[in-house]
């Protein structure tokens, strides 16, 4: 029998298990579990199931340290998605997952199937997908290949999401040279379900039938998990292209409707989508979860291509397929639902009382004596028999070595010069010019030209779509609203992965809390390098520690996620990128708070204190950073109080608008409040560090909050009760953003003129918008946006 296609284009001299990506040690471990050498088909099954992508063999020991318990958690890690109750018999399902390597090889299909895959994780559990957020990271935007990847990935996300009718309501688009050879495509999906309909990926009840429905099985995506997701590779490698799956959003739309109809009518005992690992993964995972086994006949699998070898059928990653476990007497009803929606459907086997995944070819036969009535037919041949456990819960686990790098924390920020630059405001540059430059920079400018390629309003739930902080969705038939955000701080994580992860959790949850919503839980996508490199594994373990510490401090469960390793290319490893997805709940949407200014005359408060540390900031990326500059620090307990305070203040109706201070610092935060409302502001800022730090520093746990003047005292009193410092900065009004610096700490060009006050920022909103609207198009060579921000 021929085995992996890899064998054809790689060294035939190499032993099969190595061509399949298994080490000699892993082969021995497989033999230990089987008590015999695996045959070629079984080896192919193990190669996929023991891949990093499917087995988490490097990260499992770390992930066990994450907090997973929390109020209302209905399903946590290990299931297809996390599920948390939101009351009234409803629950929200959510998860984020990566599709990095496929997108590097074939950006459109890689991104499209990334969306399709995460959507299946959601509706497999009985939830209707209601939103997608996509967190994208690319290399230098002026690089031709980056532009090709951005265009393909954006078209792929839109091409799939728009067609299936799930709105893309948020996400990120970040550029950093470290992603040049290895872009990140992380997609988060959110679904809504009736709790009573929660469906798990299980295979209970020996005798129950195993049904495969959806698209036919082809050779696309053979070994995708092992070949692409689990090894470092050089981009544009044509030998990898056959491993990229091809998506069909129309089939996915039908798959959604069929799956939800089957679940709604109580026709399935268990349901599992086919993703990485295909039939091998779906059969072994469901059986292992239920302590059962499965008898599967490959001849019964609907195929797209002739002459497919058994191993190809077993590990194919053809998209838009589902595996259902049903009671025998429901077969006719299930077939009728599939026929009505025009999807192929086939009984490919049955659940067995033993614990083996038993694969045959040659057909099944009826035998009333056997439980379930299906047995191997007279002409059948057994091609594989493996304990389900050995492929999944008992897969190999590696204890990797973690070694901290010798690099000092005060090294320059990524992409920034180490030279104390002449361009820092305290050395005489006009701070207003710095602000305009930041707003027009590739990472802080408007994302409109990207998200306008997505349908963000289908399903009529979108209260706040992309481009305005966290996304907000109403829950029909209730007063409830769901709020979602994704964030990752990779620039700081490059120096201190613990801090990068903690900051990522803090920012994502803060973005949810400032709307007045209570974060429910955290999903995460850990994008890191080669775990066999001690420094890369140290980054991963430190980031997981930061994730765990931050979630514990904020009292949040981690309900699931995904680990993407080997994100390296000839140009080096990516910045360690812990992408964090958060979903929050607001009980009464009438109390929602937005980031934009609301009314002339409103008082502007700064809540929280600026800390030193420009390293890793957008300001540092733009203007360079002094070598003595350190990273910002975070007090997780203060972060918890800040978020509790803003939720309480919002619930009391004291808050007109609330914006968190992150990329670009206070100046950019105020500029966004102004641009998004068309209302200017005049503020006077007491300088506590240096103008650069106070204006553009990104130290966390700070908010810009506006309120009716009469509410300001109550708001400040409440802040004191939560142990939070506040400063009254000024008021909303006019058509310009004016920021004056004052106080002993104030320095600047003006200082040389004998003044104690630095040059003020004084910029018309129109000029801020001009820079912000056109920055991305200029960076990517796309030209001007087809519409202006004023339109929305």
């Amino acid at each position: 029998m021929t085995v992996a296609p890899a064998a054809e284009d790689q060294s035939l001299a190499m032993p099969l298990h190595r061509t399949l990506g298994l080490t000699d040690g892993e082969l021995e471990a497989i033999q230990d579990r089987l008590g015999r050498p695996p045959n070629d088909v079984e080896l192919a099954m193990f190669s996929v199931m023991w891949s990093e992508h499917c087995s988490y063999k490097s990260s499992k020991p770390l992930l066990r340290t994450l907090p997973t318990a929390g109020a209302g958690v209905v399903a946590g890690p290990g299931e297809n998605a996390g599920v948390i109750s939101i009351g009234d018999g409803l629950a929200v399902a959510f998860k984020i997952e990566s599709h990095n390597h496929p997108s590097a090889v074939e950006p459109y299909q890689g991104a499209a199937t990334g969306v399709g895959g995460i959507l299946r994780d959601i509706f497999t559990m009985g939830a209707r997908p209601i939103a997608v957020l996509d967190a994208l990271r690319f290399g230098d935007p002026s690089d031709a290949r980056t532009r090709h990847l951005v265009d393909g990935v954006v078209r792929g996300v839109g091409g799939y999401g728009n067609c299936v009718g799930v709105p893309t309501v948020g996400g990120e688009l970040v550029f950093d040279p470290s992603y040049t050879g290895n872009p990140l495509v992380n997609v988060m999906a959110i679904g809504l379900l009736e709790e009573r309909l929660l469906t798990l990926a299980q295979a209970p009840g020996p005798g129950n039938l195993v049904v495969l429905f959806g698209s036919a099985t082809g050779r696309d995506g053979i070994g995708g998990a092992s070949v692409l997701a689990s090894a470092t590779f050089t981009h544009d490698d044509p030998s990898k292209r056959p491993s990229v799956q091809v998506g069909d959003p129309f089939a996915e739309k039908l798959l959604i409707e069929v799956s939800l109809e089957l679940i709604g009518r109580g026709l399935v005992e268990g349901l599992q989508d086919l993703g990485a690992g295909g039939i091998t993964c779906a059969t072994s995972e469901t059986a292992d979860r239920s302590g059962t086994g499965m008898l599967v006949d490959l001849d019964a699998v609907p195929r797209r291509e002739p002459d497919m070898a058994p191993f190809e059928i077993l590990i194919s990653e053809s998209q838009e397929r589902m595996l259902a476990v049903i009671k025998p007497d429901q077969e006719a009803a299930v077939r009728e639902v599939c026929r009505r929606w025009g999807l192929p459907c086939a009984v490919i086997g049955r659940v067995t009382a033993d614990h083996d995944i038993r694969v045959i070819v040659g057909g099944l036969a009826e035998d009333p004596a056997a439980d379930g009535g299906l047995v191997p037919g007279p002409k059948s041949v057994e091609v594989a028999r493996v304990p389900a456990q050995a492929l999944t819960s008992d897969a190999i686990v590696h204890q990797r070595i973690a070694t901290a790098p010798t690099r000092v924390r005060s090294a320059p920020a990524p992409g920034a010069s180490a030279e104390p630059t002449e361009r820092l405001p305290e050395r005489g540059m006009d701070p207003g010019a710095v602000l305009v430059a930041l707003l027009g920079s590739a990472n802080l400018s408007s994302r409109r030209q990207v998200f306008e390629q997505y349908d963000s309003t289908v399903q009529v739930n979108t209260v706040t779509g992309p481009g305005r902080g966290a996304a907000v969705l109403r829950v029909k038939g209730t007063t409830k609203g769901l709020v979602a955000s994704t964030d990752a701080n990779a620039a700081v994580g490059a120096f201190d992965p613990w801090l990068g992860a903690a900051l990522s959790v803090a920012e994502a949850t803060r973005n949810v809390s400032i709307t007045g919503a209570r974060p429910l839980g955290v999903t995460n996508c850990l994008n890191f390098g080669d775990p066999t490199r001690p420094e890369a594994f140290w980054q991963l373990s430190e980031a997981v520690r930061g994730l765990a510490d931050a979630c514990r401090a904020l009292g949040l469960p981690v309900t699931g996620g995904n680990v993407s390793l080997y994100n390296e290319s000839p140009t080096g490893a990516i910045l360690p990128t812990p992408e964090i997805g958060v979903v929050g709940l607001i009980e009464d949407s009438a109390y929602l708070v937005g980031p934009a200014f609301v009314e002339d005359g409103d008082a502007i408060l700064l809540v929280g204190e600026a800390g030193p540390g420009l390293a890793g900031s957008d300001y540092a990326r733009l203007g360079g950073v002094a070598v003595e500059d350190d990273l910002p620090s975070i007090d997780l307990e203060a972060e918890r109080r800040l978020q509790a305070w803003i939720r309480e203040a919002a619930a009391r109706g004291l808050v007109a608008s609330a914006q968190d201070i992150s990329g670009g610092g206070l100046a950019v935060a105020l500029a966004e409040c102004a641009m998004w409302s068309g209302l200017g502001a005049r503020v006077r800022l007491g300088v506590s560090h240096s103008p650069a730090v106070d204006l553009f520093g990104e130290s966390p746990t700070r908010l810009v909050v506006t309120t009716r003047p009469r509410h300001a005292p109550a708001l400040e009193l409440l802040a004191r009760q939560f142990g939070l410092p506040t400063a009254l900065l000024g008021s909303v009004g006019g058509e310009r953003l004016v920021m004056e610096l004052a106080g002993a700490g104030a320095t600047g060009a003006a200082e040389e003129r004998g003044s104690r006050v630095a040059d003020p920022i004084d910029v018309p909103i129109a000029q801020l918008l001009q820079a912000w609207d056109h920055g991305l198009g200029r960076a990517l060579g796309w030209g001007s946006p087809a519409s202006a921000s004023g339109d929305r």
Partner: protein
Amino acid sequence: MSVRIGVVVFPGSNCDRDTMHALGLAGAEPVELWHEAADLQGAAGVILPGGFAYGDYVRAGVIARFSPVMRSIADFAADGGLVLGICNGFQVLAEAGLVPGALLRNRELRFLGRDVHIAIEQPGTPFTHRAGPRRPLRMPIAHGEGCYYADPALLDELEAQGQVLFRYVRADGSAAGESDDPANPNGSLRAIAGVINAAGNVAGLMPHPERASEAVLGSDDGFGIIASFVASAAERAGTPATVAAGLR
């Protein structure tokens, strides 16, 4: 007894639920019309919703027009029944020849999803008579093939016959140009966003009034179009009272 409005569901329709939701707000009784079924279930009016019917393979709407339900809808329309196509539904009606013209790929050759403003050019039709005082209506578009096209002679005829139902305009209500004007998002000829047939009972538009029917979603400018359709259908079915109740 509220008026029954049929909403066609093709495989790939993805705005059918949204449309039924908006119809409910307007006090109608929405009923699903499955693409394989010829029976319109006594609906007093029919809406073809947005989406990607049959995946929009080949060309948007080109396959959907041959479905059994479309044959019944053609007969229904021929008898004067009210039919409204929204987005993909408009594309299907155009492919089926039930409304004049064709929808081509957007000028930018990219899918475009954002808010636009449209003006009602014919206030007196069954689709617009309850839309209130004349003003630019803000509602979302979400399509890749929404560039309205017809040859110059037909365009002149449509203008003369009053068959241009909706036109893209700027936020201040001023006319949008045909090209290089963001207010005309897809480059539609004469900035046409929606048309009506000569008989005045079948209409289509690219923007999504059902997505702009509640203030919580940022605009309820589209509700007048949904409400007009429901009211007109109810009058023909002889049950106007309950519809008024649905209006706010």
